[in-house]
């Protein structure tokens, strides 16, 4: 019976784990112990056979089969980009630009509406408080009424609705005649100046002409005009309306603007 410790030392020797001194000592022991020596020789032979086996490893080439079966996409690198690059991508993307323009438009719209809304819903001011502002451009309905004149005869029919503000005089004129008549509007050029004559509903036979200090309308049929005069000085002044037929006055009247 061989000592287990000796067997272990034999194995260690065969495995090449012992240093140079020990095998000599071991071999001395083996020389005196035939059973242990036989074990040593047996394992030396087994070791030799295994080495032969190792040298005769079978060749194999399975590389292509393996590569064909694996999922090549599994480790496809994800492109790592820095935070600043990511931000640049976001800010310069068409989606962001459109979104930004949309939001900016909304804010500008709200801002503009809030400003304009103040003008619409703001407190109404007195005339003297808004002198020299755009108040003059307010609507006809908000102007001060100077007079509403009605003339009616077999030859002609006319209405003169005259309103004024600090800078404008606006006369809405409806005139109707079966035969040609002439309407002459005269005023002091120091007080008023012709600004505009609008033919709101005028037929082809009717004409209107104006100069800095008068307006002349040659009328046939039913027509409507809006005459705008520049109100120069806010002093009390008159505008004269005269209707002629064949240069013969049929009707004359006047409207006082800037009444005190």
């Amino acid at each position: 019976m061989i000592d287990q410790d000796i067997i272990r030392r034999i194995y260690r020797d065969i495995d090449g784990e012992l240093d140079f001194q020990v095998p000599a000592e071991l071999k001395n022991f083996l020389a005196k112990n035939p059973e242990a020596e036989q074990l040593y020789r047996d394992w030396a032979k087994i070791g030799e056979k295994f080495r032969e086996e190792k040298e005769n490893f079978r060749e194999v080439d399975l590389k292509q089969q393996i590569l064909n079966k694996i999922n090549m996409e599994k480790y496809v690198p994800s492109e790592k980009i820095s935070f600043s690059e990511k931000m640049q991508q976001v800010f310069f993307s068409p989606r962001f630009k459109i979104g930004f323009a949309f939001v900016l438009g909304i804010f500008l719209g709200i801002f503009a509406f809030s400003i304009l809304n103040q003008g619409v819903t703001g407190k109404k001011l007195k005339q003297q408080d808004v002198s020299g502002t755009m108040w003059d451009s307010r609507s006809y309905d908000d102007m001060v009424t100077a007079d509403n004149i009605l003339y009616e005869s077999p030859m002609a029919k006319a209405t003169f609705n005259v309103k004024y503000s600090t800078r404008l005089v606006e006369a809405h004129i409806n005139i109707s005649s079966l035969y040609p008549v002439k309407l002459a509007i005269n005023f002091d050029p120091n007080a008023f100046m012709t600004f505009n004559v609008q033919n709101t509903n005028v037929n082809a036979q009717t004409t209107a002409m104006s100069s800095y200090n008068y307006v002349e309308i040659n009328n046939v049929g039913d027509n409507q005009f809006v005459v705008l005069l520049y109100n120069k000085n806010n002093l009390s002044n008159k505008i004269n309306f005269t209707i002629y037929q064949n240069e013969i006055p049929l009707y004359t009247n006047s409207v006082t603007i800037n009444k005190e």
Partner: protein
Amino acid sequence: MSIQDDNILINEVLKGKISSFGLLIDKYQKPVYNLIFNMVEDEDQAKDIVQDVFIKVYEKLESFNFKHKFFSWLYRIAINDTINFLKNRKNFETLTEQNEIQEEKTTNDHKEEQRRQLHAALRELRTDHRVLILLKYFFGLSYEEISDVMKIQEKMVKARLFMAREKLREVLIKNKFFEHD
């Protein structure tokens, strides 16, 4: 090619360089195949297992711990897969072995006869003993490396290997492998 080289190749594979995995296959397919072949004793089955092992290694590569050696990890996967395969094949194993032994006995070559006897003796060992012998003598792994592959303590490796050797010699003596019998 060193362990550091293996780690470089693994890192390259993880970055999407598939050719580096090809290099790992080139390096390890032969020892892995021979390890598996010496356990299953069937060329086609060994090739199938080798392919499965490398595919599994590729799939699990991102979980590889760089503190360990790649070949230890690879061999462990190969051994575990082969043991699982052998368990499933258990019912057919005896018949297969008998057929192979019958065929091999026809050879007259002394060297080949000894080789056959060695493999026959290995087949008679328990699977874990057979693996230990293969790792130690076929692949020349140290006790520490075997410990890493088998995930058992080094002193346990030594104890089991001692028993495996004793058993192997016993079988070889029984099969008249040695001339002194």
